């Protein structure tokens, strides 16, 4: 206590997030060096940016008012196409990701299966949807089929990984109890594992539906069909008022999906 009273004149300080002062300073210095080197190596044409600002204002002005009317048929068709793609690819993607996710769970899959499934997940997750879409458009031709394959493949990476992690985190004793009752492997998965991961997985499935719709809005830019194609055409024709209408429709549908899926998730859980 004497030591404590000796230092009582010192002001109390908030404990820092990173406890070691040495690490804190080292990180700060690294950050400064990094920022300086970025500034040194990034050629920013400030005059171009400055010139761009009035152009940007004109550009933004061209967005208003949004024109829903003159291209409405194309917009409706694009949105409908995006929605079909989203539905089909979410279903197919999740259906395919279940075996892969089960195979990628360390606690239930044998080692060779585990490594194979993890590799599939890693490949699917490393590439952005757009890069996948470029290749699938090359393989399957323009149109919604390429978009559907892209989104399904991307869904596998997302959903399979989360499913595998969820299975790895499950309560082993419940699964053990089912196995002790003499269940076959399938029964074991069905009654011991599945009920534990199901509620979270339904929520994630709905979340993935959201993501797929959002992504379907851009894979059209590289030829994957859907509203993205319509949006890209609107940009190419400098019809920014139609583009604004498309963006507003996308935002509205995403909001609707988000509220809908939030509501469904609460209802499921």
């Amino acid at each position, binding site marked *: 206590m004497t030591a404590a009273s000796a230092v009582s004149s010192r002001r109390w300080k*908030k*404990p820092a*997030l990173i406890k070691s002062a040495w690490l804190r300073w080292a990180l700060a210095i690294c950050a400064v060096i*990094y920022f300086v080197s*970025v500034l040194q*190596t*990034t*050629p*920013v*044409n400030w005059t*171009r*940016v400055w010139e*761009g*600002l009035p*152009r*940007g204002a004109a*550009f933004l002005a061209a967005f208003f008012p949004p024109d829903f009317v003159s291209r409405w048929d194309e917009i409706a068709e694009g949105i*409908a*196409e995006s*929605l*079909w*793609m989203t*539905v*089909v690819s979410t*279903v197919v993607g999740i259906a395919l990701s279940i075996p892969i996710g089960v195979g990628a769970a360390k606690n239930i899959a044998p080692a060779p299966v585990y490594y194979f499934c993890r590799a599939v997940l*890693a*490949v699917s*997750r*490393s*590439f*952005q949807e*757009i*890069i996948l879409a*470029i*290749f699938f458009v*090359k*393989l*399957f*031709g323009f*149109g*919604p*089929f390429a978009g*559907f394959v892209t989104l399904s493949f991307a869904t596998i990476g997302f959903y399979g990984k989360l499913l595998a992690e969820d299975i790895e985190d499950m309560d082993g004793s419940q699964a053990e109890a089912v196995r002790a009752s003499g269940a076959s492997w399938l029964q074991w998965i069905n009654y011991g594992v599945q009920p534990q991961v199901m509620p979270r997985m339904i929520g994630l499935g709905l979340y993935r539906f959201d993501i797929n719709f*959002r*992504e379907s*809005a*851009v894979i059209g*830019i*590289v030829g994957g*069909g859907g509203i993205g194609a319509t*949006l*890209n055409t609107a*940009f190419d024709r400098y019809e920014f008022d139609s583009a604004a209408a498309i*963006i507003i429709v*996308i*935002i509205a549908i*995403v*909001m609707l999906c*988000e509220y809908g899926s939030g509501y469904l998730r609460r209802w499921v859980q």
Partner: protein
Amino acid sequence: MMAFPPQARTWQRRGSRTQLMIWAAWLVGVALFVGCFQLISDKTIWAFVWDAPQQAGDLAVRMVPPDWLYIRTLGRPIWDTINIATIGTAGAVALAIPVAYCAARNTTPSVSVVRPIALFIIVSSRSINALIWALMLVTIIGPGVIAGIIAIAMRSIGFCAKLLYEAIEEIDTGQVDAVRATGASGAQVTAYGIVPQVLPAFAGISVFRWDINIRESTVLGLVGAGGIGLELNAAITQLYWTQVSLILLVIVGTVIVSEWVSAKIRHAII
């Protein structure tokens, strides 16, 4: 109940009513799926789909071996890509803090006016893909890294702000009350009662988003917003498939490294 001899009934997981509802839901779901697939297949030229394996084989032959020497020109684009992701994330995080503060139910200055605006910002930022932001920004401020940085920042605000405001809403109010009871001002309550509680979550969110942004920034070049996507686009349009495969390998490598870094940092924080 007693009318049935007990041994005639077998155990069932659900009552017949729920069973029926689940069956109906499956019926609707399957019908929807089949209908949607039908619509897609109407728009598909199946001949192209059937020869896809052949095309894939053809492409694979042309992509191997990767043009290893091409790596010498890729250093710069990769550096740009990492910068787009990092600076973009930093900008987004800085902008997300006030938005999250306004969106959290327990800190917002006004539930009826400010909170809906903040939520609208979050949703619109989240629903417009980085590529669409980049498409617009390239027209406004010209092609280059800066358009990519802003695109990534605009896209990430919503994500960071959403996770952050949820973290703020889940804080322990006891600590906030304790700080307030000492006579602290509003700013002091925020600094000593709220910030320390959300700081770890905040750091985790930033690193997590950085990891996602590395992946997103690899494609921004396709619309002219700098980074390795520019090289990818050039290689694909010129049909230099050996360069394309090297770029893809580099992208996978970068993504794996960034994922590893982000996982390490998040483990250290939590």
